C-alpha cells in the first residue's frame, strides 16, 4: 500500500507554509506529522488535509546544550503545540528571548511559521521545522 503522505511531500508543503496532516475517513481523527495509519483507530484510509497551523503551547524548554553542529543555535526554545485539529507537533518559538521562557508560555495561542534545518552528516537531507509565533489574544 502506498505511503499516503511521505516526509518529502510534508516537508515541501511546510516550506511553503502549508501544514499538512492526514484525516481518517473512518473516525475523522487528524494525524500530524504523517504516519502510515490513523493515530486513533489504526485505519489506513487516510486523506491529506491542510491544517490551520493554529493551536496552543502545551509545554516548552529552553535548550542550552545542543547537539553537535548546532552550537550556534543555542539557546533556543522548543515547544509542544496542541493544534486546533487535535494532534500535537513539535517546533521552535522565536517570538521570545529564550532566557525569559517561563510557565506563562503554557496555554499561549500560536500559529505555525516555518524555518529550515539544513541537515547534518547524519541526516538524509534538510527538513522544514515549524517555527511558531504568538497570536494576538
Amino acid at each position: 500500500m502506498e505511503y499516503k503522505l511521505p516526509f518529502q511531500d510534508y516537508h515541501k508543503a511546510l516550506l511553503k507554509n502549508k501544514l499538512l496532516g492526514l484525516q481518517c475517513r473512518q473516525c475523522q481523527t487528524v494525524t500530524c506529522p504523517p504516519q502510515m495509519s490513523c493515530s486513533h483507530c489504526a485505519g489506513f484510509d487516510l486523506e491529506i488535509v491542510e491544517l490551520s497551523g493554529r493551536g496552543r503551547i502545551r509545554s516548552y524548554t529552553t535548550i542550552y546544550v545542543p547537539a553537535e553542529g548546532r552550537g550556534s543555535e543555542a539557546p533556543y526554545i522548543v515547544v509542544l503545540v496542541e493544534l486546533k485539529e487535535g494532534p500535537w507537533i513539535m517546533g521552535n518559538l522565536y517570538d521570545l528571548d529564550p532566557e525569559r521562557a517561563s510557565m506563562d508560555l503554557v496555554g499561549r495561542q500560536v500559529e505555525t511559521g516555518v524555518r529550515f534545518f539544513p541537515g547534518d552528516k547524519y541526516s538524509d537531507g534538510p527538513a522544514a521545522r515549524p517555527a511558531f509565533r504568538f497570536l494576538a489574544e
Partner: protein
Amino acid sequence: MRKVAIAGTGHTDFASGAKKTEIELFCEAATEAMAEASTGPGDIQALYCGNVFGDFSEGQGMIQSYIANELGCWHIPATRFEGACASATLAIRDAFMWVASGFYDIVLVGGTEKATAMGTPLATRTFAMGSDSKYEFPAGLTFPGFFALLAHLYSDTYNVPMERLREQMSLVSVQSHFYGTKNPHAQFQHKEVTAEEVSKGFMVASPLRLLDCCPFSDGAAALVLASEDAAKKLTDKPVYISGVGQASSPRLSAQAPYLPRIRAREVSVRQAYDMAGIGPEAVDLCELHDCFSIASLIAAENLGFAENGKAGELWENGETRIGGRIPINVSGGLKAKGHPIGATGASQACEVARQLRGDLAEQGRQVEGARIGLVDTLGGDGVISNLVLQAGF
C-alpha cells in the same frame, strides 16, 4: 515455559574515559558472571549483547560476534540488541525466552558501552538519534530536552508548582548520589551532592540542570541465565526471572493522549506483573530508569508506586530509601552509578539479583529480606522493558 534463573552476575566499574574497549569491558563482566555460576565458555550456548553506539564511539559494529569468540564461546550464535538505553533489557528478555522455551539451557547476556569516547557534542547528537529524526530533531530536540518538556507538562497537568517540583527533582538526585557513594562500581562513588547544588547547577534544558541529568558513561554488565534444572547445578542462590514485559511508543508528540505518562511503560510493566502474578505492592525494591530526575517521578507513577502527580512525595517522605516503603535506585541509579547505555539494563538486573541474594550488606546498602525486585528500562522515547526478579532459595 520453563523457569529461568539468573545463575551468575558480573559488573565492571562505571567510569568516564575508560581505558578498555567495549569488547574488553564486556569480557570482564562476562567472565565474572561465568565464574560466579561455576561455568565456562564451553557451556554457553548463545550470547545476547546490548550495545548502541559502538559504531560511533569506536568505529566498531557487530561486536557480539567478536565477544563470543574472544570469550572462547567459539561460533555460538551471538546477537546484538539495539533499543537505545533499554538495549540490554531487551537482550535479557529475549535470552529469557530462548531458555524458557527449552531451546537453550545456559546462555550469556549483557551489554557494553563507551559513550564518553564520543565527547559531549557527538554524544548529544547520537543520543538524539533515539528520538524522531524527521519530525522532532530538526527543531533541535535533545534527550534532556525531551524530559525537560515532560517536566513542564508534568507541572501543568498535575498542578505541582514548578518551585515544588524543583525541590522534588533535587531530592531524587541527592538520594541517588548518597547511595552512589556506597556502590564501589559507581561512576560518582566519591560525590555526594546537596539539594542546593542540584537546583543551582548550570542549565542543560530548562528546567533540567546538570545534576538532574545522568552522565555519559563507560562500562559493562553481564548475567548467566540458566533453566531451573541447569541453575540448580550452578548456584545455591538462583534468582528467577518471574515476569517480563516490553512495549513500544511512537514519537514524543504522538504520545500526546497520555503524556506526561509513558503509556508503553504501563503496558510493559503490566505484562511483567501479570506474568509474575504480583502487583506493585509486592515489590521490595526497584531499579528504575532515572536518566533525568523528572524521569524517576514519572516512572514511579507508571510502575504503580504512586498516584499520578504524587511520586515526588515518595522522595520527600524518604519512602524510596532503604527502610522506606519502596527502595528505589539504592545502587545510585543511572544518575550516580552511571549510564553506559547499552549495559544499563544488565547493570540494573545485576544489582537487583545481588540485592535478592543478600550480597550488599558490606556495602551498607542491603535491603534486608528483599524477595522480589523490579527492573525498569526506557530506551529513547519509545522502547520500554520490565523484569520481575524473585529470590528462588
